[in-house]
């Protein structure tokens, strides 16, 4: 579809953020080099421009970080909750103050549109700290008995799809409950965590309470295996999650895992279709589909399939793919060459297995990692693209005739993180929601997040909840 009019470029200024040529590890309140001096580069996925050089933490560095966290734990956990609360409130406020800078930084390092970092990631990050700040002196009221105790040192490993938001989901509840942390950001998106280290300094947070160790999977493995870590929290792939579960087996480490998903977005024939189209687009193309709770399987009732798909294709034709810093961009870059290769391979597999592939006319930039919004029809439950998490802007469309069939198909997956239901009938929504084996069910909306609302999966999407009152349990000795 030809666009009715062209948009002039509207780039957000990069001048608001000052990225240093290199960064060390943040251990015991200081930035230091890795013991063996190793570094790696982080690039902007939309241009492949090198943004900075970051230290690669080895076993020795991880050990130093855990020791710093252990040393800080005694005083931090003994602080009155009200004082811990005030540190977290400070952090929340500084994040609010610096949110534009952090949004631009995140867009540069991750490749997602500025529209998302500015309007979704950053407000949620600040809100998460604000929310858990308030819990720090109210743990007696949280339903875990009187005076619940922290666990100790938390080793936290987070993914690249929402770098700063995942950091907030991990660090805010850990600190509120009196734990100290060693956090490893993803290899491809280390920068916002390092900027967060600076925020901790501005907030006057005692040294060693938050430690940031950058690196690849080896760093993460060393952290979760460290004998003096009391709690392991991981967000990432199901395969790595299982490996971590094996690593902590036989220890006293408390474990929470937030892993993959293959969310079903179920559209009934009485659904408000225009609204559903918006929800489907948000469900699978938000953050280029690199979202664990993405609605990557569209289950549409047969009687409205044609009408819905026509509307959906029309809508996809209006999505704007390109410079993530442009305020009008809907679809940004894929985070890494590796992830792009994985998405490409799975999409090819979809075609090879007989599903019908469609993408709107969409010009891809010549440098960087890009993948056009893609829709597969004639997908069956046996197809790889209906079973495996693609973690990209690829939607698989399946159909159903009865609510029972919709539920059966939605639940026919190893995962159980999210689901969506579109219908005007409240009782139908609630009946279906009751039957879905998923940790978050959105009705007539999708991809809604709030610090007060628990998030997490059933089955192989992991266990434990982040957010809300429930999110405290992961960091308390209960």
């Amino acid at each position, binding site marked *: 579809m030809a666009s009715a009019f062209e948009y002039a470029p509207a780039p957000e200024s990069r001048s608001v953020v000052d990225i240093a040529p290199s960064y060390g590890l943040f251990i015991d309140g200081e930035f230091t080099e890795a013991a063996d001096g190793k570094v790696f580069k982080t690039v902007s996925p939309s241009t492949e421009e090198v943004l900075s050089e970051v230290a690669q933490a080895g076993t020795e560095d991880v050990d130093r970080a855990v020791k710093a966290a252990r040393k800080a734990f005694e005083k931090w956990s003994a602080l009155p909750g*009200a004082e811990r609360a005030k540190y977290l409130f400070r952090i929340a406020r500084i994040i609010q103050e610096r949110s534009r800078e952090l949004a631009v930084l995140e867009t540069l390092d991750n490749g997602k549109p500025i529209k998302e970092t500015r309007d979704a990631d950053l407000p949620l990050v600040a*809100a998460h700290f*604000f*929310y858990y700040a308030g819990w*720090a002196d*109210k743990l007696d*009221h*949280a339903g875990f008995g009187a005076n619940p105790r922290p666990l100790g040192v938390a080793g936290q490993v987070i993914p690249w799809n929402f770098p700063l938001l995942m950091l907030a989901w991990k660090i805010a509840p850990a600190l509120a409950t009196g734990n100290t942390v060693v956090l490893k950001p993803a290899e491809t998106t280390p920068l916002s965590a390092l900027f967060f280290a600076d925020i901790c300094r501005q907030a006057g947070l005692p040294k060693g309470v938050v430690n940031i160790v950058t690196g690849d999977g080896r760093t993460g493995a060393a952290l979760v295996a460290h004998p003096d870590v009391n709690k392991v929290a991981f967000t990432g792939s199901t395969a790595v999650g299982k490996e971590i579960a094996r690593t902590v087996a036989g220890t006293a480490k408390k474990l929470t895992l937030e892993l993959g998903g293959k969310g079903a977005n179920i559209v009934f024939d009485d659904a408000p279709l225009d609204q559903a189209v918006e929800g489907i687009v948000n469900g699978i193309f938000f953050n280029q589909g690199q979202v664990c709770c993405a609605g990557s399987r569209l289950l549409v009732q047969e009687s409205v399939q044609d009408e819905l798909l026509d509307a959906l294709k029309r809508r996809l034709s209006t999505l704007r793919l390109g410079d993530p810093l442009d305020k009008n961009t809907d679809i940004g870059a894929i985070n890494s060459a590796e992830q792009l290769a994985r998405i490409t391979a799975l999409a090819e597999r979809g075609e090879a297995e007989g599903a019908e592939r469609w993408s709107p006319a969409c010009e891809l930039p010549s440098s960087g990692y890009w993948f056009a919004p893609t829709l597969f029809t004639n997908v069956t439950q046996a197809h790889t693209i209906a079973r495996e998490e693609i973690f990209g802007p690829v939607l698989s469309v399946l159909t159903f005739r009865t609510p029972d069939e919709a539920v059966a198909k939605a639940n026919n997956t190893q995962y159980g993180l999210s689901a969506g239901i579109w219908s005007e009938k409240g*009782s139908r929504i609630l*009946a279906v929601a009751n039957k879905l084996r998923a940790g978050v069910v959105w009705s007539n909306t999708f991809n809604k997040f709030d610090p007060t609302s628990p998030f997490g999966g059933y089955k192989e999407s992991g266990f434990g909840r982040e957010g809300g009152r429930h999110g405290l349990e992961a960091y308390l000795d209960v």
Partner: protein
Amino acid sequence: MSDRLSVFKTYKLYVGGKFPRSESGRVYEVTDSKDNWLANAPLSSRKDARDAVVAARKAFGGWSGATAYNRGQVLYRVAEMLEGRREQFAREVADAEGLSKSKAAAVVDATIDRWVWYAGWTDKIAQVTGGANPVAGPYFNLSSPEPTGVVAVVAPQESSFLGLVSVVAPVIATGNTAVVIASEKAPLPALSLGEVLATSDVPGGVVNVLSGRTAELAAPLAAHQDVNAIDLAGADEALAKELEIAAADNLKRVLRPQPVDYFETPGIERMTAFLETKTVWHPTGSLGAGGSSY
């Protein structure tokens, strides 16, 4: 010392986000613990009390309709603003309550932290007092707290600032709006608090502060048909009984006076006292089997 002549502050009421004098034109002398004159405070009238209720009612829709997160940020903002005026309030509290400088400073610090405590409660009280109810049938059933409405607050007489904030903050944290009668003998910290609230993003009318004779102002508020609840913290035994009787006329929620150490960390009872519980039922239908609602 400089021989510059200082500028006195005219203490005024805080009603509907504005700083009016009493419509009656009356004032009364406020003195410190050694009977030295401090200021002339407005001696509010019944009409001032009624005006304050109108302002509080007008503000209720917006304030109770704001997100809990938003209310939390506003309350936190009050703490931030107060932190910058610690010295002023320490001086006023010292004068008002006859405290040493350091004791007064401790009172002010505790008061600031009290705002932070309640800022954190705005988006948690529903998670502690509400919840899903497992009714024996195919129904979704959820209970949630809601603010009761306009709350009249008879502020503590002795603890003119920490006590005041300890009774006002829980009322507005949950979305109620308040008409507050300041400590009769020591109203100045309360009147100055109005200046802080006015610069803290608290919408006008959410908190309204009156100074004057407690009994004269509390009676029309307790009897007012558009007031939903009353906190009797600062009423003596005889007055409390009289006000509770008047409050029964439209079944106001009443929080009776009780001995409180305002330095202690509060519980949630000052919030729950002014919350209603709303329970919503909705059928869930059933899948497949006969009697399906599809």
